[in-house]
């Protein structure tokens, strides 16, 4: 029996939805790995909560992509039957949880971006994306607040937590540039008013990050080299392992309903 794969017609709008859906799914999946293993019960619940928010965003975006594509795809088809090279998530999202500081750095950098991104997207000319943005914006504002508070606690806390938080910020830094990347497909949507220009978000993001890091007594990394590739399906070695787990049942029992 051959495992099915999905052939997708990646029009600019479908691709746009899949990219954001993949960010949310993969980052949510990472957060869900913490469930049952968090540093406190309260934080265990908070990490699951954020994972659930992201999973919900992913599902809305996949469903919309399926509508737009109009070829009978489903949210589960996109999530469970695409190959690694078809996934369009940011490299940041697939980075491993590491210690709690790394999870927090990853969440903070992403949320500081997604908070601005979804707020701007609330005025998208695409009604469905605008509606998804309204819900996501509130969720990401909470993720930003929560993760920023932890960056500050850990940066300011003890010698050990300071060192771990600083190392985590450095480790995640080179994956932040990709969040602002745009290609021709996105520019086409920007012209139609459906997508937003990411360029102007950069200053706001940097201001939030530098504010929080300063309060946390942490240094802003100086390096300007940024890794890219996730948006075009060129991933690191981590995504394959995530998909091996995530897709296990759908791949093992092709066609079964669960």
């Amino acid at each position, binding site marked *: 029996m051959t495992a099915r794969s999905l052939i997708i017609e990646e029009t600019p709008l479908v691709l746009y939805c899949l990219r954001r859906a993949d960010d949310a799914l993969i980052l949510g999946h990472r957060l869900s790995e913490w469930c049952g293993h968090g540093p406190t019960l309260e*934080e265990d619940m908070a990490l699951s909560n954020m994972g659930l928010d992201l999973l919900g965003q992913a599902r809305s975006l996949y469903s919309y992509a399926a509508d737009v594509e109009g070829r009978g795809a489903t949210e589960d088809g996109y999530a469970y039957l695409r190959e690694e090279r078809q996934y369009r998530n940011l490299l940041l999202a697939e980075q491993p949880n590491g210690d709690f500081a790394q999870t927090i750095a990853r969440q903070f950098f992403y949320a500081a971006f997604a908070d601005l991104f979804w707020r701007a997207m609330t005025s998208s000319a695409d009604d469905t994306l605008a509606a998804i943005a309204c819900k996501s914006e509130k969720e990401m504002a909470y993720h930003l607040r929560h993760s920023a508070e932890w960056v*500050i606690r850990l940066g300011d806390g003890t010698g050990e937590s300071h060192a771990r938080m600083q190392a985590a910020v450095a480790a995640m830094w080179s994956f932040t540039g990709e969040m602002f990347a745009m290609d021709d497909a996105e520019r086409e949507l920007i012209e139609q008013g459906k997508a937003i220009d990411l360029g102007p978000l950069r200053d706001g993001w940097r201001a939030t990050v530098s504010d929080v890091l300063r309060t946390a007594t942490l240094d802003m990394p100086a390096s300007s080299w940024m890794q890219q590739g996730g948006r075009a399906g060129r991933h690191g070695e981590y995504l394959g392992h995530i998909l091996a787990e995530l897709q296990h049942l*759908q791949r093992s029992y092709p066609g079964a*309903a669960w």
Partner: protein
Amino acid sequence: MYTQALNATDSQIQPVEDMSQAAAFQARIDAEERIEANDWMPETYRRTLARQISQHAHSEIVGMLPEGNWITRAPSLRRKAALLAKVQDECGHGLYLYAAAETLGISREQFFGQLLSGNAKYSSIFNYPATTWADIGAIGWLVDGAAIMNQIPLCRCSYGPYARAMIRVCKEESFHQRQGFEIMVTLSRGTGEQKAMAQDALNRWWWPCLMMFGPPDTVSEHSDASMAWKIKRFSNDELRQKFVDATVPQAQHLGLMLPDPDLRFDEASGHWLYGEIDWNEFKQVLAGNGPCNRDRLAARRKAHAEGAWVRDAAAAHALKQMRAAV
């Protein structure tokens, strides 16, 4: 930071428990009054409740592990979200229960210490492995189902904080139970492989679920006092029978076989009679020899140890903030 400090410490309450106090206490219980955290209570009542509520809390927390094992592999996004939310609910149950137990004057850290040192018990059921997706269905249907049987009477427990926690918990447990049953429905109406997976899960979880109600009434140690104090309202065997009676028709609806050749309906009593439970297996699991006892404790210890620097940092930061505010 976790202690609610409602109560006087042990040394302050210890002295004379005279007969009239005890009699007045029992009269309140008999009149179905709720005992609250700051009310006088016999030391044995306090100790019994602290043990029971904390064991219950430990069970919720350890119970996150077998199901947590499937969150990253759930077969659809809908199932994944439901499972993650379910396991998160169990964490919430643990939190309410530790908070209820803390009203008896023992801190969450102390209860955690008892769990991690291996001195405190938690439900035997969580020492079995969740090896297939159907186990997620079976756990929701049967384990949450058995938990509900145990917990509904606890909503009327004489100790107010415990009773109130149970009311909140029971609502969520019945949602979990329906969700688990729905997974079983899907599997048992699915492909041959899925149906076999569901049957196999039922075969493995059925007997351990019957053991969840504890030893038979003939040997149960704590029941008499707990009954008189209205901590417990039904005996282990009564609750077990209620569970069997409720579950047999559900298994029939699924078209699955309960793995008990002696199971039969008794017209005279109106109950489903079940076969001999392997109490030796139960004893072994309680003694630490179940298939996953070591892994469960190791996972909790690892999370606790790896979280230590995080908790220390939060405490250090809070202290600095407090000093800065003065």
